């Protein structure tokens, strides 16, 4: 317990020392880098994953391919992929971004697909029966009903991307992982644990954002049926 308090003290000291908040090596700069990698890759992954997930879910064609891709993708060691990309393409952010996108697409794709597929056939039948066009069925019924799962997919992808962007510091990229990796190589535990704390805070913020988003965009009518997460 005492040790735990020491650790908090350590983090407190590190976070409050003014050098952490200025310059190229400071928290704001690293945080911005981290958010840029994560945000950009999540954006592209969402564009790809949502488009194909909605398409396959709505038409029902290509379901097997989507399931296989998602299954295979989960098995890819993210750390290995980032290191491989840097080894092959050198230390620049574009290849790493592509790797991050590749990692973030599958959870968005499979959850969007399953969300749309999971819409009760009777509801879909009713939607067509009252005279909705295919597009209207998709946008007015399938997407709103799939939102809990779509958000879940986006959240898992965001967590994945934030975590992998941290690891990307190891082969030499920026971002919050730098504190940890540099701390490890310099045997500076204060730096390691301080950096870890900032990463944890970022992860909690991501989690909180998605919880809030869910409250705002998911219809209360679906809440009871949507406790699964």
């Amino acid at each position, binding site marked *: 317990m005492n040790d735990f308090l020491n650790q908090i003290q350590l983090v407190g000291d590190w976070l409050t020392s003014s050098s952490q908040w200025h310059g190229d090596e400071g928290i704001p700069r690293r945080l911005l880098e981290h958010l840029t990698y994560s945000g950009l890759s999540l954006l592209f992954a969402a564009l790809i994953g949502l488009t194909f997930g909605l398409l396959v879910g709505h038409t029902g064609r290509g379901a097997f391919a989507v399931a296989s891709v998602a*299954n295979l993708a989960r098995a890819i060691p993210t*750390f*290995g992929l980032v*290191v491989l990309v840097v080894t092959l393409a050198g230390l620049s952010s574009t290849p790493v971004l592509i790797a991050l996108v590749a990692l973030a697409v599958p959870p968005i794709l499979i959850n969007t697909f399953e969300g749309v597929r999971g819409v009760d056939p009777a509801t879909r039948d009713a939607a067509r029966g009252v005279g909705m066009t295919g597009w209207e069925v998709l946008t007015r019924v399938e997407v709103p009903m799939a939102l809990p799962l779509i958000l879940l997919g986006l959240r898992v992808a965001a967590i994945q991307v934030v*975590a992998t962007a941290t690891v990307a510091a190891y082969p030499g990229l920026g971002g919050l992982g730098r504190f940890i990796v540099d701390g490890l190589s310099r045997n500076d535990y204060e730096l390691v644990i301080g950096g*870890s704390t900032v990463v*944890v805070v970022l992860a909690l913020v991501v989690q909180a954002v998605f919880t809030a988003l869910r409250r705002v965009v998911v219809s209360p009518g679906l809440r009871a049926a949507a406790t699964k*997460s």
Partner: protein
Amino acid sequence: MNDDEPLVRWQWIADHAAELADYTAVHLRLGLLPVLFGLIISVPLGILCHRLRRLYPPVLTVANILYSIPSLALFMIFVRYTGLTEQTVMIPLTLYTLSVLVPNVVDGLASVPEPVRLAATAMGFGTVRRVVQVELPIAVPVVIAGVRVAAVSSISLVAVGQLIGQGGLGYYITRGLQLDFPTPIVTAMVLIMLLALTTDALLVLAQRLLTPWSRSKVTAA
């Protein structure tokens, strides 16, 4: 990297076969023990959450928050207490499995049809016997679905542990970067994926053997 360096040098793999096998065994241990520990925690916790519904949302929230913390950061937090050991890798991996396993145990128990539950009670099963002999077996398919997800992601996450010197096959990933030599990286990745997919296939098989009654349903779906 040298431009004419091939992605894979087969000779390197042949030369390191024995060493690769050793690291593979370590990797499996680091990846799968956390799933086992996760199950040992999740089954009683899930049963508890199933019986005390109010407990479930806070437990799930905590599990989700733990899951959202990047592995590298979580490893570092435990280094202070458990040093650069295998435990430091396995404890966070165990915590990660909870966000999949606990909800699947709860959903699995919820999937037990009410008439079955009532019939078991009417026949004189006590609560504990009913849960162990009737409800848990029926929950097995859903629980195993969770174990599959947990096992696959756990096996692929082990590699990050290499940053504290305990990454199983992750060793070859850092080695490859240091030597600017892709063969070990590619080899390690392929082996890790093979481990994950084989484990997944074995779990599917295990489920079929454990729940012969659900087989016809599985093929029908």
